[in-house]
């Protein structure tokens, strides 16, 4: 299982590195959203602290979904998906491999967007680096899990793109809200019991969404 897992990730990353058709679009969209938000934020510093978390995670969500959406759409070119389904590997291995590739895309996006948002909002990133690392580490797996599951479903039905965002957004609202609230509390310096409860909620979402993905993926990829 482990070897299959790594070789599928390797294949997907090599394909993306050569084609460069998903990650550049995702990063560009993230930058555009960040710049548009920042141009509208003619606010005082304490007001920026209140809204930067929500804007950051909305930008991550919308830009990230462009990459997540393509993770399965690309497999459907020239019947590759059918070939993958014939291989002697479990559906859970396939799901975890796709989830990991999407997770790497989301983290790459956040490496770009978090400093950009903090810079444009004139907030000190280094003062909150540890908290932001923890929020990023916990918010992304759940997002990648739901995105991977729905993307597989959407690609199979030939309705990638529109269907993905429509289905994923309602499912991820609690997670995006939790990530935004964690970020707001972190930039306001309120690392207390409330902040930890939001962090625990992010962790709980990860467990729920990854488990649901492992259980449902087999049905999502059925023709």
């Amino acid at each position, binding site marked *: 299982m482990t*070897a*299959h897992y790594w*070789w599928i990730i390797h*294949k997907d990353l*090599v*394909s*993306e590195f*050569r*084609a460069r058709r998903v990650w550049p679009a995702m990063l560009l969209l993230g930058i555009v959203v960040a710049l548009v938000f920042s141009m509208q934020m003619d606010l005082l510093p304490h007001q920026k602290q209140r809204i930067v978390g929500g804007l950051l995670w909305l930008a991550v969500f919308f830009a990230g979904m462009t990459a997540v959406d393509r993770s399965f759409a690309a497999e459907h*070119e*020239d*019947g*590759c998906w*059918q*070939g993958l*389904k*014939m*291989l*002697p*590997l*479990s559906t859970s291995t396939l799901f975890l491999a796709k989830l990991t590739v999407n997770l790497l895309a989301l983290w790459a996006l956040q490496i770009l967007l978090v400093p950009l948002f903090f810079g444009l909002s004139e907030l000190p990133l280094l003062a909150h680096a540890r908290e932001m690392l923890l929020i990023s580490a916990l918010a992304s797996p759940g997002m990648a899990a739901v995105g991977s599951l729905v993307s597989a479903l959407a690609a199979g039905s030939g309705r990638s793109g529109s269907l993905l965002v429509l289905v994923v957004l309602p499912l991820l609202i609690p997670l995006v809200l939790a990530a935004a609230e964690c970020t707001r509390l972190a930039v306001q310096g309120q690392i207390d019991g409330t902040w930890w409860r939001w962090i625990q909620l992010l962790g709980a979402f990860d467990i729920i969404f990854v488990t649901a993905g492992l259980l449902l993926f087999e049905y999502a990829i*059925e*023709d």
Partner: protein
Amino acid sequence: MNDSEFAIETHGLSKEYADRVVLRQIDLALAGSQIVCLMGGNGAGKTTLLGCLASLVRPTAGEVRWFGRPTAIPSARRWIGMVAHESRLYPQLTLRENLVFSGRMYGIDQPLAAANRWLAEVHMSEHANRFPMHVSRGMRQRIALARGLLHEPRILLLDEPFAGLDDAGTIWLTQRLRGLRDAGLLICLTTHDAAKATELTDRTCVLRYGRLCQVSQCDEADAMQQGRQARVA
């Protein structure tokens, strides 16, 4: 490995989609060392049946067994090789990399050496570093066949394997399939070409409206007749 004398068995195999029944109560038992042709008109259910035999399509009712074992076991898929109408090659990987990826997925020792060996077998060594979109359909078909055979399956399924091949490619593929049959493989293919079925296959199954109408050890006249019926269906 063999729990059954038959490489493929189906019992009461049916497949329905929301608005139509594609396969109805198919019962088949196919032993190894033969070439079996699935024939039938458009919409007769050939490709769906092939998909069920490959475990790609989940039947609504009934079951498929490979060597007496259920197809739900992932490791049992090692016994199956498939060459579909599409090449199923990753466009961003070279032909060699496609074979190596497949070899790794099947847990083959030294997948690079195996890929190189099969590239030579299908006379594609000099094109190994090219991408699928940069070679002809016939060349992609050769690589697809190499990928289907790389892990030494016991059953080979082919969906319209001669479509788009030139004369040289057709002769080459015919010879390869005969060689594989003689090596003990069960080869199951779909075709519309009655003449090709006559020339190549040991047994013909004719599908009509999702039902298996005829299964026969066929001589030339039989196959031609079945081909005509299939076209009418």
